[in-house]
């Protein structure tokens, strides 16, 4: 990639207002990365959240955006927490269950911090683009300077806040950098409508930065994708 893919990105992304929002982890407050997603999801949309955990994002989207939400979650504890919130969540697996959803079943499909843990990220991403008119996807950036320095200077697999597990127990089997991900998007014909990186505090980085800055200083990449050839306007 020569920077052109990110260079095409529309400026003035909707999550810029997230700067005024509270920190992640504050009691009762929504996570900042959830607020970033909130800024991207239109009111009343049909949303599928894959790897939805305890359903906090779906509940946030339902309460603030009036969405019709569905979820997929691997753990029974997560599914039970979702049930108690009144969410329609099925116990399942992104690698095996997405094939069963019809085309264009959702306005927005969200895959948060999960693609690097799937067995086949390319097939998963292709399913996301097939099932949803838009795809919001976030992942830890393996190109972050701390990751690079761990490898380059200490010669060790990095352990960071967003990648807390040792190499022999991590569920993350397909790490990628922001630049790698852009490469996959081009390979499978996914149009990048918006993209940003979140800094170490989980906040969106300033938009005018060139791609290599994101790839170096972003801890997470957040992308809004659409299948190439799919209708652009809502």
């Amino acid at each position, binding site marked *: 990639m020569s920077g052109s893919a990110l260079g095409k990105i529309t400026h003035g992304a909707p999550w810029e207002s997230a700067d005024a929002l509270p920190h992640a982890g504050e009691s009762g407050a929504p996570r900042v990365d959830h607020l970033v997603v909130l800024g991207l999801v239109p009111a009343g949309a049909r949303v599928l959240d894959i790897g939805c955990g305890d359903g906090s994002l779906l509940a946030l989207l339902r309460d603030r955006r009036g969405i019709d939400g569905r979820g997929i979650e691997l753990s029974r504890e997560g599914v039970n927490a979702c*049930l108690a919130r009144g969410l329609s969540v099925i116990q399942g697996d992104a690698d095996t269950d997405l094939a069963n959803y019809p085309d264009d079943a959702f306005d927005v499909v969200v895959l948060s911090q999960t693609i690097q843990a799937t067995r086949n990220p390319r097939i998963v991403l292709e399913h996301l683009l097939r099932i949803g008119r838009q795809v919001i996807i976030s992942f830890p950036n393996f190109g972050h300077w701390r990751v690079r320095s761990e490898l380059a200077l200490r010669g060790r697999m990095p352990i960071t806040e967003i990648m807390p597990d040792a190499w022999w127990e991590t569920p993350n089997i397909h790490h990628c950098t922001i630049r790698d991900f852009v490469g996959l998007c081009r390979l499978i014909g996914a149009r990048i409508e918006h993209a940003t990186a979140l800094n170490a505090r989980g906040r969106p980085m300033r938009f005018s930065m060139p791609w290599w800055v994101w790839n170096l200083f972003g801890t997470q990449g957040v992308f809004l994708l659409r299948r190439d050839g799919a209708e652009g306007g809502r």
Partner: protein
Amino acid sequence: MDTQPDTALRPDPIDEPTRRASERSQALDPKSPVARFGADRPLLMDAGVELAPFQIAYQTAGTLNAARSNAVLICHALTGDQYFAQTHPVTGKAGWWETLVGPGKPIDTDRYFVVCSNVIGSCMGSTGPASIDPATGRPYGLNFPLVTIRDMVRAQAMLLEHLGVQDLFLCIGGSMGGMQVLQWAALYPERVFAAMPIATGPRHSAQNIAFHEVGRQAIMADPAWADGRYLEAGTRPAKGLGVARMGAHITYLSEPALHRKFGRRFQGGSAPTFSFNADFQIESYLRHQGLSFVERFDANAYLYLTRAMDYFDLAEDHGGVLANAFRGTKTRFCVISFTSDWLFPTRESRAIVHALNAAAAPVAFVEVESDKGHDAFLLDEPAMFSAARGFIDAAARARGL
């Protein structure tokens, strides 16, 4: 445990007359309220028969609210009955779903009006093959029309109308009860607010039909079955029905559960007797299951209800596409399966979930970790209870209950 040979399944001769009396009385004169439908309100059956008159025996718990919005229908399984939270009139056992239903339980009888009816074709007070055919004055026997899951649901709908219930807050059931739940959602979608099909499938598999056929042949091979006219002949196909139950009971359990409970342990000793006595605990247990079942169930009813399950194929009823059964539904679903259930394995529940997804229906799905096999849905499974409580409470909030 015995000194005499103990090789064949043998009903206790002393209990035989009382047993016969008690079962007959439950089929014809049950210890339950009964809704009677006369010639003006026949049951339109899939077999093309208009059944009239007929009756439905049922039990209720809780109170219907003024808005009539808090009704729950519990659908019982193959050999279940309406005594979901009441002492069984024949066995004296507690209600079969008291783990799930009662004051403060996930199905809270302080909040909901709960109804459970004996399915049409059964033998606990609803019209079935043991009932008297008004045309002949004799028991129907095999002259009773073949029953389908849809017939059961139609009869339940008539009962609910009789009780003044227009629509259900919740329809819930396991196994054959789960088939009824799916059929309710497909047949009367606007009358089911929330549905919980548990340990069930969208159709009966070839393997399950095969097991049922073995059971039916065991009954029919018993000379006492008398071509289905045993009630008039004064005989009882107790051995055939007992063997049918023994075979079926294995399918309700799992290998790990059997091993945990019985292993290869000997009954009343530590060595084989070199005979066909019930040496192993598992043999003794199965014989007990077979014999105690015979006390409370009618052999012909067993033939009819197993057949009803065999015929169930919801996709086939909707052009071969299961999703069509739920097209446009507003009902919210919660599907539950159990990891060790090999009679209705998780993939059957997933087929339901996928169809509901394809129909854009709101659906939740939980696979409960359990080694107790198919019968787990009747047992103390905290993971099932917490899922049920979460789903039902949220549905109640959505309905303003």
